[in-house]
């Protein structure tokens, strides 16, 4: 039978049309899969490529004498790709990794709840297995598809010292990852101290190797024979300016005391010691016990985690008189020969600032020697009420600029991530408090003796000692001296010149020397070395006065400037002074003279922690 001229011919168009429509739909789906959706490419890569991260060794840290302080030890993380995990003997696994089944379930749950969790990429399940635990697990790994071991390094410390200065290394937080795409979950980064500030120097650069993996998880060798692999770049080693022996000695002296010791080499700004007390062993914050120890330290009422040298805020007390003596000379308020009366204090109008017994009237050198309060109250009043200034605001701003030029009131720029700037008020501050016409010299008289609104950190005090030692300039304090194959930042070598000319320093330094030879700072005296010092006793609302001491030695070509704060310990001369003195002797002579052993013992053994603060 032959085909008739039927009226169904149009139906071929419907048929061809549906073929074309199907074709178009499929092309659209291909566009969707192959062009619009890069996700499939990533899936394919995570399927086929096992990108094994190669972690670089973190840079080592040495002290100024080349002694190794911080190095690395291996640790092993158990990584898991949930998508590949098959039924496995959980009991066996728990046994090998030394955890309970309960704990395993918790770990898995926690891992799944992490932001950025993916079942296609390796996730950290258990971190930091020791080498022994790793060895046991390694043998069972073939039975555990989806589980991998990732090599890591942990920090190890040769001295149980300088925990605050060195800082610690811990697992990165979500914020770290958001801020720097370099990090992935489970990575480690410096959390504070040098480890944080120099993180990019120390960490090096991660590398990776790309391995091919088939559908059953078997590795099929390197992708393109390793052409696309990237070797890791080890972190750079760092040499600190710390003298670890001096640091250890400082920590020994500060045992059972709350406070700080900061020692700086004046000519270079290099920090020689940076003691924060109470402190802890840096090894406590390494490895699996980190979390627990961190919690314990964080809950300690004595706040051992607080980095006091950089963050604690104290009124500088009488140590502040030296800068005032310098400013009053510079601004022409006094000469070293100017005398002010003081009979057990400064009395004017209804106001009294007490002082202790000493001859009166005094010149400037002797006022520093005896730490006379009256002298500086008169001096400040004379400056604030001086007619050569337009008004008290003008006078105060001049004073303030001079003070700030000694490194007060702003961050010194030290190479630490957490420096506090202290506080020096400006005229505006007092205008707000008292009204523009509501204040004059008398109103703010306590700043003459480093009380009132003035706040400084221990590092600022040490830097201030350094500026006096250098007679008119200071170098940004810094703790890193050398970086392997790299220059340290220019900002750390910057010379800051004070507003006070060099010529005015001699007289004030005379006063400091006299304080040691026959004044309030006698305790700092050493046989062979001329020490210049100033005591301070800072009143504070938290209890007994803080004992403060600032010094440098020797007078000619000073090699060490130091500030010591012992909280709630009373007079500066009693505790902070001896500690500063012993530190200087230890640094300059390398040992403590036999005559001072008793003093040393007394300092080491003293427990000055107020009973209200001791943990119950």
């Amino acid at each position: 039978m032959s085909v008739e001229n039927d009226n169904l011919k149009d139906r071929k168009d419907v048929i061809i049309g549906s073929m074309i429509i199907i074709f178009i739909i499929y092309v659209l789906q291909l566009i969707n899969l192959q062009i619009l959706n890069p996700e499939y490419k990533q899936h394919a890569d995570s399927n086929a490529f096992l990108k094994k991260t190669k972690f670089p060794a973190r840079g080592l840290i040495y002290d100024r004498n080349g002694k190794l302080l911080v190095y690395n030890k291996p640790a092993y993380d158990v990584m898991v790709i949930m998508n590949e995990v098959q039924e496995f003997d959980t009991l066996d696994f728990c046994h090998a990794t030394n955890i309970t089944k309960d704990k395993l379930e918790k770990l898995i749950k926690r891992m799944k709840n992490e932001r950025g969790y993916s079942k296609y990429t390796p996730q950290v399940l258990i971190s930091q297995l020791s080498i022994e635990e790793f060895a046991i697990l390694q043998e069972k790994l073939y039975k555990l598809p989806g589980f991998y071991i990732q090599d890591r390094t942990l920090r190890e410390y040769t001295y149980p010292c300088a925990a605050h200065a060195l800082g610690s290394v811990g697992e990165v937080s979500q914020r770290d990852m958001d801020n720097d795409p370099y990090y992935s979950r489970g990575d480690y980064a410096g959390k504070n101290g040098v480890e944080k500030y120099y993180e990019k120097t120390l960490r090096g650069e991660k590398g990776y190797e790309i391995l091919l993996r088939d559908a059953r998880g078997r590795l099929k060798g390197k992708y393109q024979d390793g052409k696309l692999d990237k070797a890791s770049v080890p972190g750079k080693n760092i040499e600190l300016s710390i003298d670890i022996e001096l640091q250890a000695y400082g920590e020994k002296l500060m045992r059972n005391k709350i406070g700080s010791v900061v020692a700086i080499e004046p000519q270079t700004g290099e920090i020689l010691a940076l003691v924060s007390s109470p402190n802890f062993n840096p090894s406590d914050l390494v490895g699996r016990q980190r979390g627990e120890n961190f919690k314990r330290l964080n809950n300690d009422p004595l706040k051992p985690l607080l980095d006091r040298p950089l963050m604690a805020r104290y009124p500088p007390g009488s140590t502040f008189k030296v800068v005032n003596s310098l400013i009053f000379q510079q601004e022409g308020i006094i000469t070293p020969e100017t005398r002010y009366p003081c009979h057990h204090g400064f009395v004017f109008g209804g106001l009294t600032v007490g002082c202790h017994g000493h001859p009166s009237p005094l010149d400037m050198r002797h006022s520093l020697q005896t730490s006379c309060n009256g002298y500086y109250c008169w001096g400040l009043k004379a400056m604030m009420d001086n007619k050569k200034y337009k008004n008290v605001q003008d006078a105060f701003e001049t004073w303030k600029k001079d003070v700030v030029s000694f490194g007060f009131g702003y961050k010194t720029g030290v190479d630490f991530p957490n420096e506090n700037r202290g506080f020096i008020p400006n005229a505006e501050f007092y205008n707000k408090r008292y009204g523009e016409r509501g204040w004059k010299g008398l109103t703010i008289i306590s700043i003459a003796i480093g009380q009132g609104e003035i706040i400084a950190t221990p590092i600022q005090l040490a830097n201030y000692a350094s500026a006096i030692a250098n007679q008119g300039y200071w170098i940004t304090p810094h703790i890193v001296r050398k970086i392997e194959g790299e220059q340290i930042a220019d900002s750390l070598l910057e010379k800051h010149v004070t507003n006070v000319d060099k010529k005015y320093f001699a007289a004030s330094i005379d006063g400091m020397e006299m304080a040691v030879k026959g004044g309030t700072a006698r305790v700092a005296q050493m046989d062979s070395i001329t020490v210049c010092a100033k005591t301070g006793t800072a009143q504070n609302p938290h209890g007994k006065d803080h004992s403060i001491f600032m010094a440098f030695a020797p007078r000619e070509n000073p090699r060490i400037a130091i500030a010591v704060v012992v909280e709630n310990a009373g007079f500066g001369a009693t505790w902070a002074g001896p500690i500063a003195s012993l530190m200087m002797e230890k640094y300059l002579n390398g040992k403590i003279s036999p005559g001072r052993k008793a003093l040393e013992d007394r300092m080491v053994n003293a427990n000055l922690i107020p009973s209200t603060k001791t943990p119950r």
Partner: protein
Amino acid sequence: MTQRHVSITNIIDWPTIIVYIILVVAGWFCVYASSYEFDNSSMFDFSQQAGKQLVWIICAGIIGISILLINYRIYSTFAYVFYGAMVLLLIATIFLSRDINGSHSWLEFGPVRLQPAELAKFATSLALAKMMSAYDFKLQGLRNYAKVIMLIMLPMAIIIAQNETGSALVFAALFLVLYRKGMPGVLIILGLLAAALFIFVIKYESIYLQGENLCNLGMLISAILIIITTNIFIFVFRKDKEMVWNNTKATLGIMLIAVATNFFITVDYIWFVFGIIVYMVLALFWKSIRERRRLYALIALFPIVAVGYCFSADYLFDNALQPHQKSRIHVLLGTEEDSQGAGYNVNQSKIAIGSGQFIGKGYLKGTQTKLKYVPEQSTDFIFCTLGEEFGFVGSTIIMALYLFLMIRIVIIAERQTEVFNQVYAYCVAAILLFHFTINIGMVIGVMPVIGIPLPFFSYGGSSLWGFTLMLFVLLKLDSTRLER
């Protein structure tokens, strides 16, 4: 009858042959690529898939040339003989073949394995062409429909009994041939609508919009679809705009009442939607009686049957399908997330294709197929290798070649003067279209996973020979069109 002598090389449809050769060769390269394992085994290693495929290709060439040389009249003359022999072979296979993953569809002759189901398509096409080219045959009346449907369904049923549901479904493609030869298009539309309703009911069977088992989303969508389709029928078959407008008004009114009622007490919206359907059915019957037109009553039957179908779809789904088929459908519909189970194949094949991106990773450089992420990658999932290594460009070119081939066959079909030839040509086109749609559709994740090969491309002798046989018989028949 005048006989003109024309050389077969002059009259044969060369475009088809060229596309056929390109597809077969491209398929061979892809088979090599998908069995290649980074260890440069030769394409001619006859212990490997690529080497074997080369043997199948050479055999296919011999088959093709032989067909062109054999007298074309045997196909028409012996169509029923072929068909009968095929049915017997299919039945015999169930008992003779080994159980391969539950399937009893392979006959083994030493090293060679044959799947008679592949040849059944050819035999059924011949038989269908023979039946419809009979002198007094017209696609009308229940008897003729029954004969044609029986012819198609018989091999289908046996193949289902072999547990090769995928291959069996291919025979459904032959309804397209019936459509071309006069079956009302509305039947095809109803078939597709049935599939759509089925999908909605299954896909949304566990979603309730009003909470607490009220307002099942699958039912709601299905009911709305039924309402719309009914109105389309009214409009298309009766051109009765007034009634469509009335239905629209009634729908809006009932929905207003539904919203108002739900302010006071919670009543399942489904009941109101069914209320609309009941209203339309009553209106249709009323009009049918008043105007004495049977068509209105016929249209009214549609929503009744459709609603019944929807209610039984769940039952059908749970009882008529095998667990792995249910699971595959669930994965396709996205109601079951299981990237390691049934969804694994589709997921991995989408990943492989997607990772090819615009121009692909380059020949033999695909990682997904090399590392065995995609299962059955040389047979049913061969398109993955193509997509991964040749990207969007390569896949689109090959798809375009298939489109060209199918359209070419339709054109060939349309130029036939013999009904036998034309029906047979449409059978070839419909079967190719079905394989193309299902195979590529499943690989790119828009169709359920039904294990049927990509014609000319997939590894395997039976499939290649079956399609070669079909295509070359068509070319031979076509070459006789001027012999008149």
